[in-house]
């Protein structure tokens, strides 16, 4: 069960990382072009974070044996 919970968070984390990798790179590029884009880039970069939060919630639910 611990392995299951770990996998839930870990793999969701990998998914988020893959998504944020390209968004982050694009955001840095946009910020280099115009510093005003920093805020937008930051907000866009955290959007895939939902995936890992789903993973975390699943892990918690597994941990609670639900």
């Amino acid at each position, binding site marked *: 069960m611990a392995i299951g919970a770990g996998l839930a968070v870990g793999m969701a984390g990998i998914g988020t990382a893959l998504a944020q990798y390209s968004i982050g790179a694009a955001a840095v590029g946009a910020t280099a072009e115009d510093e005003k884009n*920093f805020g937008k880039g930051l907000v866009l970069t955290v959007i895939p974070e939902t995936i890992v939060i789903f993973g975390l919630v699943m892990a918690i639910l597994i941990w609670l044996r639900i």
Partner: protein
Amino acid sequence: MFKPARMTRVLLGGHKSHLEDVIETLHDEGVVHVEDFADPTGTTTIGTPLEAGDQASALLVHARGLLKTLGADGLKGKGMRPHDPEAILREAREAIQPVVDETSDLRHEQSTLDAETSALAPFASLDVDLSMLGDIRSIRGYLGTVRTDPRPALTAAGVSFDASVDGAHVAVAVAAHDAQTADRVLAEAGFSPANLPEGASGTPRQRLGELSQRGAEVIARMQGAEARMDTLRAEWGPRLAALERHLSQEVDKTQAPLQFAVTETTFHVEGWIPVDKANRVQNALAARYGDSVYFESLGDAPRGHDDHGHGGGHGHDDHHDVDPEDEAPVKLVNRGLAKPFEFMLGLLGRPRYGELDPTKLMFIFFPLFFGLMVGDLVVGLVIMLVGHLLKTKKVFGIGGPAVGRALMMGGFMAALIGGVVFGEALGIHFVVDEKYADEEPSWENILGMDIPYEDEPHGFFYKTGYAPTADAYALDAGGSGHGTESLQQADENATTGHDTNATAAHGDDGHGDDHGDDHSGGILTPHSKVHVSAGGIVNLGYYSKIHDIQALLVWSVIIAIVHLVLGLILGVRNVAASHGVTLAIQEKVSWLIILASIPVAILSNGDTTMLAIGVGGAVVGIVLLWIGTAKVLGVGFISILEVLGFAGNVLSYTRLAAIGASKAGMALAFMAIGFDVIGGGSYHSVVGWIVYLIGMVAITALAMLSGGLQSLRLQFVEFFQKFYTGGGRAYQPFGGRRA
């Protein structure tokens, strides 16, 4: 309250001879958002800049240059009307230039001295006279580094020489007639000369002393120059800043005709004015020019959708294809604490004209969500402090007044929620149930305070909730005597799951099992029922971020539904205003019907009528949505996917609980490292506290970043999706304060 300022479109016209004066008047009023004049008839051309413009631009460049030299380019100037900007600039340059020149000379001198010092320093221990390197006819001098000691080779070559050697650093003097031989021998020894200026005398040590003395003099003179620069900055900075402001306004004015339409003899201006300022502008123009300047207010219908009959009414019914460029510009009207959130909203884009301005809602929900995710008394207060600093400073490009203020509000809510709901400071609860006292630290135990229970004699603070009767702890029989191991076990419990761990040592009281079993009550019941009461006014500490995660997840979903329903209700209003009531029902009310039906169906509990109402309602909602989607996108079935998307939206709010729990989990990990591993199981270990506090600093930084961004994201992505279009233009009045 939730709407941007109402605007009206105005047309101005008059004889060209009034052009400059009208520009002056409009600039002074500072409320007209001038539009580029679009002339459908093609009988007019755009105006040309006023003649004074070239000179004003040149002077403006000059003034900005001087401000930069003074290091005062961040100064904000006060309004003024100088008589002779050119003379002021000349005077300023005459005062500033000598100091600038002196500073640059001194810098140059200092770098020369530094270069010589660093070149000479390795030779400090050599005993030679540096003048031998100069122009002496009978002697040839060498100073530099070698790979091997050149003395034996020089002797062998029959050169008469005098040398001083310190490791690889050598000084050699040879008779002039032996110079060629010496050159060759030294080259073989790998000689490379030191890069020194000529004309020095004395030993290297003396010379170095001389250099450092001169260096000190240069520094002293530099400080003098800097002090004079400071005086000049104080004297000239504000004047030049005011001049800069005046000149840039002048340039703005002279450029204004580029947005006007002109004919041979007349000019026309089109623009937007907030309705409450329109009369003021009209009166100002009438007072100065009487009837010779034409002024007409056309109401807030978009350009190209003229509907004079409405006379300023809302002509939004057929908004479908209006280009935001033709709509009135959006002036957000928020004051006080809500103001910083205009900046946050700006990250996404302004609302369209006629849409609701969600700034005030962000002001309510951003700090609330931030507080729920961070939820810690001390961390919240620290974040307030950081927010205060960020108001004036930027770190990694993040900061500014808006971010600082938002963080301060978020920090305040974090402290409040952390204190009241979670009852914790620095990741440690104020009090814990006695039956968990062995597993979990609490400030009460760490500080050795014995807070009395409600029924005992007590002061302002007392514990309430559980009475410490024997019954309540009957299950805890096996749970005593953990001693120093307890912390580690608590951690294992927290990270590995209780069930495998619910061995003899813990008996049945592993906290994971508490939720439904030990305590009567529903899913929302906290595992630990003891609170600190502050004088009976407020109880502190209901939920534990980790142990009560289940309850918190449920609360998150409840908050999600409330927040999203609010979003949908706003959506009903926005769609009704821009696209009509029918689509509002199909697009948004359908959602509300679905949302209301589902609980009815679930709670029907076998009652057929209720079940029928619930399922029927959901079907009606989905059908309405299908029709609406078909109308907008052309394909209706996408609405089915949308229904699943809504579930995703709701789950997305679980981050409110999950992020708090992840921070608490990190705190637990640092606790284990600090107190268990390093502190040997004691909460009084100083090193343990240092490690723990360093961990908390990292957690606080993460909490600020993730709390802020995630809170913003919940608004932007989940909430706004339900009602917000965005893409409106900013209101930028001619002559108004520059943003």
